[in-house]
């Protein structure tokens, strides 16, 4: 199947789902509600009450991270949907962008309704030039890694019977759409790498920075503080070390397609 054929099928599938995004938002969540799977917490080594409290704030952090991650993604998709270089897949890129906009609205609604805010993005705009190495490959490679990693969480939490139904529903909706994005991302990335035969070393260096950055944002000391934990920075550092094996396993699973293309480096996993 060509990329254009795949994109056409995914576009038609997207259109059939347009009306099925309803979420029954509860008025409130209680301290008894699990909002993040215990074994997926960045700091799972806690008593149940503390873990459940942290689970709420890690859900807010996870949705905030996705919200912030989708802004540059949507901008990149919109630019490419209007570019002649992507003419044959432009309708799907536009649908992809619409789905991401719907996800952003869903994540923001959860955070604002139950936490009163999103966590801010831990970054600032700089005037530094963009890395000039293969911007098209970088865009789709970063997008693919981010979506594959987030989808590992989506798939687990959509099926976790201990989680509140609204959490399962958010992850199920996200997973439903991400499946198409990931299939498309794997295919277009393979085509781009085959066509351009890029300097993989330079790409690996850049992408490993992105992988590390993504993981670091899942260990948010602000979430620990909001959950009432003490020594939040020391805890974060201990959790980062203790969870090294978990991160490596998740990175290798989420990054298996990038690894196969020579775009990730297993020697320097975060």
């Amino acid at each position, binding site marked *: 199947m060509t990329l254009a054929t795949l994109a056409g099928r995914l576009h038609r599938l997207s259109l059939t789902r347009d009306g099925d995004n309803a979420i029954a938002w509860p008025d409130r969540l209680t301290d008894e509600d699990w909002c993040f799977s215990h074994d997926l917490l960045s700091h799972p080594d806690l008593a149940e009450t503390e873990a459940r409290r942290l689970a709420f704030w890690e859900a807010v952090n996870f949705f905030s991270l996705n919200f912030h991650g989708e802004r540059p993604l949507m901008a990149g998709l919109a630019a490419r949907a209007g570019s002649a270089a992507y003419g044959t897949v432009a309708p799907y890129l536009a649908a992809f962008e619409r789905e991401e906009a719907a996800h952003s609205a869903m994540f923001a609604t959860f955070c604002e309704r139950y936490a009163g805010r999103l966590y801010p993005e831990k*970054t*600032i705009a*700089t005037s530094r*030039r963009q890395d000039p190495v293969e911007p098209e490959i970088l865009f789709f490679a970063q997008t693919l890694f981010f979506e594959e990693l987030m989808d590992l969480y989506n798939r687990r939490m959509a099926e976790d019977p201990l989680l509140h139904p609204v959490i399962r529903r958010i992850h199920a909706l996200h997973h439903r759409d991400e499946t198409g994005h990931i299939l498309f991302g794997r295919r277009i990335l393979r085509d781009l790498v085959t066509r351009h035969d890029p300097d993989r070393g330079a790409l690996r260096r850049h992408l490993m*920075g992105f992988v590390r*950055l993504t993981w*670091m*944002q899942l260990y948010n*000391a602000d979430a620990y503080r909001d959950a009432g934990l003490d020594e939040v920075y020391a805890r974060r550092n201990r959790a980062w070390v203790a969870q090294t094996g978990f991160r490596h396993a998740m990175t290798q699973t989420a990054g298996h397609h990038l690894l196969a293309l020579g775009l990730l480096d297993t020697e320097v996993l975060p």
Partner: protein
Amino acid sequence: MKDAPSITLKRWIGERCGRAVADDTPLLEEELITSFDLVELILIIEELRGNPIDLLHLAPGSFASVAQILKTFFAEHTHV
């Protein structure tokens, strides 16, 4: 006893860019740290301060050099 923020910051940045940096070395202008490094640097500054940084209300150039970082986020350590 913990190192002063200036020592910790210069050591971390030096390890990242592979060269020694002084208080006034232009970090962004000379592209010694990447946009990814900047996020990690923010987390390190927060840890050294013991408090989060309000990124929405920062003056331009707050991360321009180690001296500027100390002035912006560690006023009491400027002369350490």
